[in-house]
């Protein structure tokens, strides 16, 4: 088969889908985009392609499905090697994967403790979340991007998650820019990239969706 067929099963608000869209754009890969109704009725293709988790994103490359956003980003990097998203040296690659794992474990779940709770629990969630961002700020240091001069793997895993931060700020009554100014500079730097700006939703729209999620979960 001479023509590559790449399909992304997507949901506009999902930061995990955002990661895949950015990675594909960075590599210049053309793909067909299919929006899934994740809160309503999932397509047959989604359920067949991801029977274990039944979630987006799913990348279908010539019909073969790849699931789990971090796995997909790694796959995109290996299937289309240029330009590389990971550093070349094994130690720096391990560092990138370590922080990718940290981001996967801490950010979205940490944010859920803010939008998904109230009162004392929300305050604790907010405090913990800011601590997490400070750790990331620490590892970023004076660098432009997490692995140095070039936008790459860690930036791609993290930047889409920041579209949910406006919602956390509204519910938590804080501003990331005040707590972690260097982190905010990095966010703005990433958002200047075309691949990022085109892939990600407006934080205000995400906030509206989270308001709805909060109501659906009976937190008010």
């Amino acid at each position, binding site marked *: 088969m001479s023509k590559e067929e790449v399909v992304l099963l997507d949901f506009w608000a999902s930061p995990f889908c955002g990661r895949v869209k950015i990675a594909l754009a960075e590599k210049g890969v053309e793909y067909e985009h299919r929006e899934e109704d994740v809160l309503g009725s999932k397509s047959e293709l989604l359920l067949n392609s991801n029977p*274990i988790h039944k979630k987006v994103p799913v990348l279908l490359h010539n019909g073969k499905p790849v699931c789990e956003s971090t796995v997909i980003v790694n796959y995109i990097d290996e*299937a289309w090697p240029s330009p590389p998203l990971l550093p070349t040296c094994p130690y720096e690659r*391990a560092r990138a994967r370590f922080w990718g794992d940290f981001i996967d474990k801490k950010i979205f779940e940490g944010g859920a403790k803010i939008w998904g709770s109230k009162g004392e629990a929300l305050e604790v969630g907010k405090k913990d979340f800011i601590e997490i961002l400070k750790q990331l700020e620490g590892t970023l240091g004076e660098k432009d991007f997490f692995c140095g001069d070039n936008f790459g793997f860690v930036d791609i895993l993290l930047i889409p998650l920041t579209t949910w931060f406006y919602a956390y700020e509204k519910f938590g009554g804080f501003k990331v820019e005040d707590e972690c100014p260097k982190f905010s500079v990095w966010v703005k730097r990433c958002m200047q990239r075309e691949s990022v700006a085109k892939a990600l939703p407006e934080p205000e729209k995400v906030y509206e969706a989270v308001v709805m999620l909060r109501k659906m979960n009976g937190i008010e």
Partner: protein
Amino acid sequence: MAEELKLFRTWSSVFALRIVWALKIKGVEYETIFEDLSNKSPSLLQYNPVHKKVPVLVHNGKPIAESLVILEYIDETWRETPLLPEDPYERAMARFWAKFGDDKVLTSIFWGVFLKEGKEQEEAMVEAMEHLQFLEDELKGKTFFGGERIGFVDLALGWLANMISIFEEVAGLKMVDEDKFPLLAAWMQEFADSPIIKDNWPPRDKLIAKFQALRDAKLAAAASK
């Protein structure tokens, strides 16, 4: 320059064992430093300030933490006897299954079935059986998850091969029934009997005592709430 390789581990950590197995499979020499997690060494805290956990691999003074990250580092640094396949799609599948093992199988079996009782345990058991069925299906036509020989996924899921029987004995129930999961049971035996694995397993009686104490403590804490 002589390579300096140190592995910080505990005697029982299944995550650290993954690293022991990988290094032995590759024939790489290393020094072991055993940690007492109730009294962590300054070195461990210095090398893994973020999580303060084992395993940590320190290669020529540079630390790497998180067992699956360490496995990939080992595979890229010592290229003989590869753990991950060459093909990008096969690599993606391996990473997917390793993640499934840690995120879902370990959670449902250890945190769900083993550390709970009564209705909570029953519910966790239903989930665990679903997860095990996915693993059973994945083994069709294969001896190991890696194919003909042990690979990345086998090392990631390897804890099942010995820990299941320990959990079953301590909790007093069957989790991997040979009739329900013939391929998985066969894999567990095949993996446990492999030379490198067999020679690098913590003593069973010590594991039983440790996990008995852990389960008792957890159930007591839950009951007193």
